[in-house]
C-alpha cells in the first residue's frame, strides 16, 4: 500500500512567479521523460522482476519518483501564483490558461497531455532494465535543458537535486543489470528473456 507523508523530499520555495518557466518545467510533470511516467514505469515493471533486489529497487525508486512528481507540481504551482492577465499573456501562458486556468495538469511542455505510451513494461528483466537506464538519462538531459533555460536560483536548486537523482538511479539500475547478468544461466551468453521461460 501507499502512504502519504506531508512534506516534500527536498524543499521548494520560489519567491518570484514566472509562468514562462512553469511552461517549460511542466515537461517533467506530464512530459515523455517526466516524473509521472518514471513512477508508473517502475511501479508497473516491478511485478515481473525475477529477483528480490530488483523488486525492492523498482518499488523504492518508483515511490521516490512519485515524490519527485509532487516536487515538480509544487514548482509549477509556485511559479504560477498571483498572476494577472497581462503577465499571463506576456509569458505566453495564455494557451495553458484557457484550458486549465492555473490548475496543475499532466502535460508536456508542448501542451500534449500525458500519455502512457511514453514508457514500456515488457515483462523481460533485461529489456526493462535497459529501458530504465535510458529513461534516467533522458530525464537527466531534460533537467540539463531546464537548467540551461533557468536563471532563478530558487528554481535551479530543486531542479539540480532532481537531476542528481537521475544520475544516482542510473547507477543503481546499472548495478541491478550487473547482478541480473550474473544470476543468468552461465550458458546464456547473450542475456535474454530469463523471466518468462
Amino acid at each position: 500500500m501507499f502512504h502519504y507523508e506531508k512534506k516534500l523530499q527536498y524543499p521548494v520555495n520560489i519567491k518570484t512567479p514566472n509562468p514562462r518557466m512553469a511552461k517549460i518545467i511542466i515537461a517533467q510533470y506530464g512530459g515523455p521523460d517526466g516524473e509521472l511516467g518514471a513512477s508508473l514505469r517502475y511501479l508497473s515493471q516491478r511485478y515481473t522482476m525475477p529477483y528480490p533486489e530488483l523488486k525492492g529497487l523498482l518499488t523504492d525508486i518508483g515511490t521516490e519518483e512519485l515524490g519527485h512528481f509532487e516536487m515538480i507540481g509544487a514548482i509549477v504551482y509556485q511559479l504560477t501564483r498571483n498572476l494577472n492577465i497581462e503577465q499571463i499573456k506576456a509569458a505566453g501562458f495564455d494557451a495553458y490558461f484557457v484550458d486549465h486556468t492555473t490548475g496543475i495538469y499532466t502535460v508536456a511542455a508542448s501542451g500534449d497531455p500525458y500519455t502512457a505510451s511514453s514508457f514500456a513494461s515488457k515483462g523481460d528483466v533485461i529489456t526493462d532494465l535497459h529501458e530504465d537506464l535510458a529513461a534516467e538519462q533522458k530525464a537527466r538531459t531534460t533537467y540539463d535543458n531546464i537548467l540551461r533555460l533557468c536563471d532563478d536560483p530558487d528554481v535551479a536548486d530543486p531542479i539540480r537535486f532532481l537531476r542528481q537523482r537521475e544520475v544516482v538511479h542510473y547507477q543503481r539500475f546499472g548495478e541491478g543489470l550487473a547482478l541480473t547478468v550474473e544470476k543468468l544461466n552461465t550458458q546464456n551468453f547473450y542475456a535474454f528473456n530469463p523471466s518468462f521461460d
Partner: protein
Amino acid sequence: MNRTQQLWQMTADQFSAFDTQLYLDTHPHDRNALNLFNKYQRSHQRARKDFEAAHGPLSSDMESYDSWRWVNDPWPWEREAN
C-alpha cells in the same frame, strides 16, 4: 531551531537514509552501508519526533492529538511549508 531549520535537519537525515536504502537494495550484504542506514534512520526518527511535536503530524496514521492537526496549513507544495 525554527521550523525551516528543523525541517531541513529532518529532510537531510531522511534523504541520507533513503539514498543508502537504494544502495542496500543492490548491495544487501554491505555491513558498512547497513550501519550507515541505521545511523541516519535513528537520527531521522528523532528529528521527526521533535518536528511533529512542534508542528503537527506528517502522516495521518500517527497518534491522535487533542485536535485534528492533520488538515492544518501549510501543505507541502506551499512556500510556507518549505
